[in-house]
């Protein structure tokens, strides 16, 4: 019995030891700062960093990238202060660090702030077009894709100006990263917004070697606006130019990413006519004739006449509706042609998803032209067939 008691005691002590060695990886949530946004700019040390460097805060690096890490929440000292100053204080904290390896930049953060950074909640990644013109995008997002904290649901955007400015907000209580993240969801209101490009998708596209577009944004006076799209060339993954808002709209039509929005045009007397899209569908048909590849895009849309400045025309008149439909079709076709021209002539890239259709519809042909598709595409013939239907005219019959 005594030896059994000995066993018992040793078992107990081992279990207790196990308990003591516990809690390895734990870090209480309130001791962390949550990284919600990341902006990448061309490397240029900020004044603060320069001063710090003068004091001796340097390590071997090339100043290629300046990363702006946005972290939340900003801690309030105590309750009174929170009550008094909450209006003026900001909800987020931006930290700029300059260097080359993005991972190292993340770790440099710990030299400046005491609360370690976690990437699980990274919502947006904004890359300045300047940086993306110089560097392969693959290199920029390499760490972010590999990291086990950062989720691949992170959104990727391109900024015309400095990317870090997109992470600043003039509105109190607003967190720019969340702001940007939610704004993408407005696609059903406005067809000038591209379908969100998340890291998972970006990874696949970059690996496939196709060219692609990223939602572009512009900033002024602390306000951010989605404007156009940055075009990135497939093989190099570098920025080659911007599509304007109008062309983005056309691109969305071609890609069939229309969830709502508006077509606006002018009638013959120059009055405004607006059309609210209820549903739209796009079909791309590829035709192969010997060496000639051509595409036929047919678009159909249902919607309502929502704005009509011309008082002489009433929508109850069937003839007027037909006429209006034609105006809209004309407008849309014009838009599509402009977009196609830009793609084929200026950038010589396919960002409209034509390659996918060819791959699916003519897999054998696709294999032969896969190598320099962008070249081949710029010579392809693309025809459009647009059919817009006005199904109703809202709550006003006048």
């Amino acid at each position, binding site marked *: 019995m005594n030896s059994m008691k000995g066993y018992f005691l040793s078992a107990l002590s081992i279990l207790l030891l196990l308990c003591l060695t516990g809690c390895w*990886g734990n870090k209480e949530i309130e001791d962390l700062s949550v990284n919600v946004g990341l902006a990448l700019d061309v490397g240029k040390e900020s004044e603060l960093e320069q001063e710090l460097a003068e004091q001796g805060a340097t390590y071997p690096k090339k100043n290629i990238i300046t990363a702006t890490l946005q972290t939340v929440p900003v801690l309030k000292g105590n309750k009174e202060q929170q009550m008094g100053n909450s209006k003026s204080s900001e909800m987020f904290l931006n930290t700029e660090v300059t260097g080359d390896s993005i991972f190292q930049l993340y770790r440099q953060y710990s030299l400046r702030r005491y609360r370690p950074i976690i990437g699980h909640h990274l919502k947006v990644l904004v890359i300045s077009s300047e940086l993306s013109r110089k560097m392969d995008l693959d290199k920029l997002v390499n760490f972010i894709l590999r990291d086990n904290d950062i*989720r691949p649901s992170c959104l990727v955007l391109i900024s015309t100006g400095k990317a870090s400015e997109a992470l600043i907000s003039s509105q109190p209580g607003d967190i720019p990263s969340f702001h940007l993240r939610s704004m993408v969801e407005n696609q059903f209101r406005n067809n000038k917004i591209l379908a969100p490009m998340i890291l998972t998708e970006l990874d*696949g*596209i970059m690996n496939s070697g196709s060219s692609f577009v990223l939602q572009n944004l512009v900033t002024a006076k602390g306000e951010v606006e989605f404007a156009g799209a940055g075009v990135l060339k497939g093989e190099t993954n570098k920025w080659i130019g911007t599509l304007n808002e109008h062309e983005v709209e056309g691109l969305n039509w071609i890609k069939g990413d229309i969830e709502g929005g508006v077509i606006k045009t002018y009638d013959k007397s120059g009055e405004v006519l607006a059309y609210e899209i209820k549903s739209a569908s796009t079909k791309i048909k590829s035709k192969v004739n010997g060496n000639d590849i051509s595409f036929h895009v047919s678009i159909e849309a249902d919607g309502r006449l929502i704005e009509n400045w011309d008082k002489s025309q009433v929508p109850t008149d069937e003839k007027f509706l037909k006429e209006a439909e034609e105006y809209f079709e004309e407008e849309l076709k014009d838009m599509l042609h402009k977009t196609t021209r830009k793609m084929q002539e200026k950038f010589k890239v396919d960002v409209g998803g034509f390659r996918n259709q060819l791959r699916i519809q003519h897999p054998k042909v696709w294999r032969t032209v896969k190598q320099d598709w962008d070249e081949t595409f710029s010579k392809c013939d693309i025809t459009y067939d647009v059919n817009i239907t006005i199904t109703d005219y809202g709550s006003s019959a006048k």
Partner: protein
Amino acid sequence: MFTRTDDKITTTQTVVIISCFMLGSGVLTLPRTLTERVKTVDGWISLILGGLIIMLAGICIVKLCQKFPGKTMFQFLKEIVGSWIGSCMCLLMVMYFVCLSAFEIRVMAEVTMLYLLEGTPMWAIVMSFMWIGLYLITGGINSIARLFEIILPITIVVLLICLLLSSRLFDIDNLRPVLGEGIFPVIRGLKSTLLVFIGFEIMIILPAFMQYPKKGVKALIIGTSIPLVLYLITFIMVVGAMTVDGVVRSTWPTLDLIRSFEITGLLFERFEFFLLVIWIMQIFSTYTICFYAASLGLAQLSKKNIRPIMYGLLPFIFIVALLPKNMNELFDFGDFIGTVTIYLFGLFPVLLLLITTIFRIGAVKEDE
């Protein structure tokens, strides 16, 4: 005592054991390993073909076992090929099961350390896991079967919900064209699909425990179909959302898919936790049944009590699990195990079946 056919398992339990064994580490890696080999979107066809082939191999084993009712292969192998070769083959099978359980544990530990417990030493993760497995298998095949019966429905429901939620990323265009490059890529992928169906080999012991061994073939077919369907849905959803080019770049594609969306409207925003939970449970089931098969094999080979053998195997599995030095070696290890399966449990039983049929070894009671 109010005993009921205690050491016997029902046909349903057999089905559940086979399914749980098959659903293992493969759920997370399958889309990548398959697509890497196939290089087109047609991996799902390979998957179906692979499943059918595995069913055939499994049926061979079941038929073989049915010639020796009430005996596991560890027991009757000697009767067919003689004492020496039989013992060697049995030992090989035991080693196989040890390696397989070690592999599963290691994969589990790697993923856990990557996504759940950064900074926790591997031994802590592995040890606690192994002890609980030991506790379970001391209860015998019946307890194992009952636990699997709890785990399997949870797995199926959670996996399907997770995949269903990912349908917002799904695009059918990513799965087209079907057979765009002919049938060859499909055949190329066959080998890697065979690897995910590791688990049918448990039929070398199960028929001995079955209440109605005659239903072995039926149990095997259903038991293989459940993972086949789940794998199929997983593959389709993952490739449909991530495209072929994206899948090959991701180490754990299924997990990456679930991490690629956040649903703000629901109570939970992130679903990889649920996926990891069921995945750990499935690894647990694969590990325990392997562990049990290995200890049963040793016990029947040496004709000793099974309990000390279970304890004795623990350190071996642990050491084998820690042998691979990095992820590449780990995946190579997995491939190696898969290759061994094909020979040890795919071709060898066919050979045995031929021998027994030709020489009429075993209880020929088929007229009954």
